[in-house]
């Protein structure tokens, strides 16, 4: 018998939850959506949770997070999470349309929508409109986690921004796990479509109520049509017992712009997969990440940019500061297809290790099949510059203050990319409050 045998079989639990869900269907089991879910479940059972033998999960051991005895509900559960708690999670000064999910289920009473013209929002559970279903093709290029999500995400958001519409307010998606009464797992799905020349800002924030363990699975499919612009910000600042897996698939058409900024300031286990396909000429993708970890926190950013057509550009900058025994992973894959001439792809991963126990595993992967391309990548890791530290101390700053200043300076390059002022301030505040020093 293997020593690492799971204490609880999460796979069996997932299957049981699915069965339970099927029993509630009363004949609706014949819908195409259900067929997708069924086959996803089969696929999940076959694949299981990824192991380090899978190249994409080499440095990311999911075994510890799958061992817990999570509650996994096949239907909405009552919760006493109230508006006041929700408000406490929303970054100060942020004026946004708010969609709240508790344990993966949409909570209309906790959400607040201002009915912006040209914005259509449905929740997947209640009113999946025709054509806005989780895509089938996703599963092929991914792993057990995505299959699990496809099978079990019974709720989520389907968001469409109509052609030419520029949203006046960002949309904030708040994912809360209620773990006051024990560990809980949840799955939800987002399907986002920006029609031609639409502009929108999406913000996602993961949170938990209570001290139990949470595991959140979120898959997003985003389509950015011709000339559209989508800013997508992910705020991840959770505690050691909170785990999350986010898979984001983006399809960009001609002259579109997609920008992802992920601020991972805490969490016991965070895996972010970001897969971008540049399908139309003139499309540009920006990817920015900031990880700031301590204790035994873990964040893994995996990006894949697929340059499929000529004249597209992509730019990624991921930075990390790792203290104590925290671990970071960055894996950046760039594919340039034979047709994708005049591609310009830039990738950079910069890390600061504040302690001997901290680790960063970084791996760029370039697969270039066209000849007229500009691609560059670079990765560094080290300590804060000793000369810079001494310089600041020689002016009277404590080592602590000098480090904080350097930390801020290091982080600000990513923070500056956050296009929403209130969020930028929110992040700056979280950054400086991680030490007593005010920058």
């Amino acid at each position, binding site marked *: 018998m293997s020593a690492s045998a799971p204490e609880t079989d999460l796979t069996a639990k997932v299957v049981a939850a699915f069965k339970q869900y099927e029993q509630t269907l009363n004949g609706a089991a014949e819908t195409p959506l259900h067929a997708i879910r069924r086959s996803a479940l089969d696929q999940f059972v076959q694949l299981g949770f990824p192991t380090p033998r899978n190249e994409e999960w080499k440095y990311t051991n999911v075994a510890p997070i799958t061992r817990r005895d999570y509650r996994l509900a096949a239907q909405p559960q009552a919760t006493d999470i109230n508006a006041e708690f929700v408000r406490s999670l929303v970054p100060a000064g942020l004026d946004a349309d708010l969609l709240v999910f508790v344990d993966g289920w949409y909570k209309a009473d906790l959400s607040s929508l201002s009915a912006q013209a040209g914005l259509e929002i449905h929740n997947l559970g209640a009113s999946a409109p025709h054509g806005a279903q989780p895509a089938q093709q996703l599963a092929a290029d991914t792993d057990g986690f995505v299959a699990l999500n496809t099978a079990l995400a019974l709720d989520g958001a389907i968001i469409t921004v109509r052609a030419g519409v520029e949203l006046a307010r960002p949309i904030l998606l708040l994912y809360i796990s209620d773990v006051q009464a024990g560990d809980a797992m949840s799955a939800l799905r987002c399907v986002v479509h920006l029609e031609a020349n639409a502009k929108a800002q999406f913000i996602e924030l993961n949170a938990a109520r209570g001290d139990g363990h949470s595991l959140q699975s979120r898959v997003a499919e985003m389509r950015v049509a011709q000339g559209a612009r989508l800013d997508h910000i992910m705020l991840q600042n959770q505690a050691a017992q909170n785990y999350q897996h986010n898979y984001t698939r983006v399809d960009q058409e001609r002259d579109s712009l997609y920008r992802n900024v992920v601020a991972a300031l805490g969490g016991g286990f965070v895996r972010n997969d970001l897969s971008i396909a540049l399908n139309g000429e003139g499309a540009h993708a920006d990817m920015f990440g900031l990880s700031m970890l301590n204790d035994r926190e873990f964040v893994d950013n995996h990006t894949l940019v697929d340059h499929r057509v000529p004249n597209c550009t992509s730019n990624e900058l991921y930075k990390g500061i790792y203290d104590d025994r925290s671990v970071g992973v960055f894996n950046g894959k760039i594919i340039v297809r034979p047709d994708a001439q005049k591609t310009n792809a830039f990738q950079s991963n910069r890390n600061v290790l504040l302690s001997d126990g901290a680790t960063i595993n970084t791996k760029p992967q370039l697969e270039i099949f066209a000849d007229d391309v500009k691609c560059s990548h670079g990765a560094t890791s080290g300590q804060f*510059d000793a*000369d*810079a530290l*001494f*310089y*600041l*101390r*020689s*002016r*009277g*700053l*404590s*080592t602590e*203050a000098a480090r904080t*200043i*350097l930390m*801020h*300076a*290091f982080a*600000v*390059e990513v923070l500056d990319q956050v296009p929403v002022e209130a969020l930028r301030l929110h992040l700056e505040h979280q950054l400086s409050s991680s030490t007593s*020093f005010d*920058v």
Partner: protein
Amino acid sequence: MLQIKNLHASVDGNEILKGVDLEIKAGEVHAIMGPNGSGKSTLASVLAGREDYDVTEGSITFEGQDLLELAAEERAREGIFLAFQYPVEIPGVSTVNFLKTALNEIRKHRGQDSIDAIDFLQMMRQKMSLVEIDEKLIKRSLNEGFSGGEKKRNEIFQMAMLEPKFAVLDETDSGLDIDALRIVAGGVNKLRSLNNSFLVITHYQRLLEYIVPDYVHVLSGGKIVKSGGKDLALELEEKGYDWVRTELTADAEA
């Protein structure tokens, strides 16, 4: 104000300073000259508290207290300032950014309240005009892309802001054009008083025409081999360091 006695310092096991003796009284300006690699910047670093240097022998006393006991930041708060020969570039941090914190650390140490934003701004304006430094420069990333002269001017600006009791200027004149040299020297002269002292490290007599020293010392091979008045600098410029060396050998043989 400052007494250095028989100071020996080494880095990575190599002894650089081999018994430096120097006394600087309040209100005095001392100049140190000496060949490349003789240990001038090492002395400056040891005074500022850089941990990479091991003091193996000797002592430094600053206003009656053992300076070697203090960390770099504590020395700064006590009133020691080093204008670096090679100021570091720190992307993402502007001079204004850290200077207010630095100033408040020093004020706190002196039992003074934190400076408020308006007073700070006013003080900055005043010191900026003293060294004729552009506001844009001190709002940019520290020294990043600064010209050699701009870096040095920024060092003197910081000195003016922090009002140290004892400042070491390590080749602040190198890289400065003639106008800048005059401005920087003028800034130093305006800060000169009966209560504070300077140690000016330079290769050129010209700076000492503007900042007239009370004493000039020659550091060679990790030791002060000759001291004199301001005329010594002129003599050195004329005769070169070989002159000091031959003189020394002659003394030794006599």
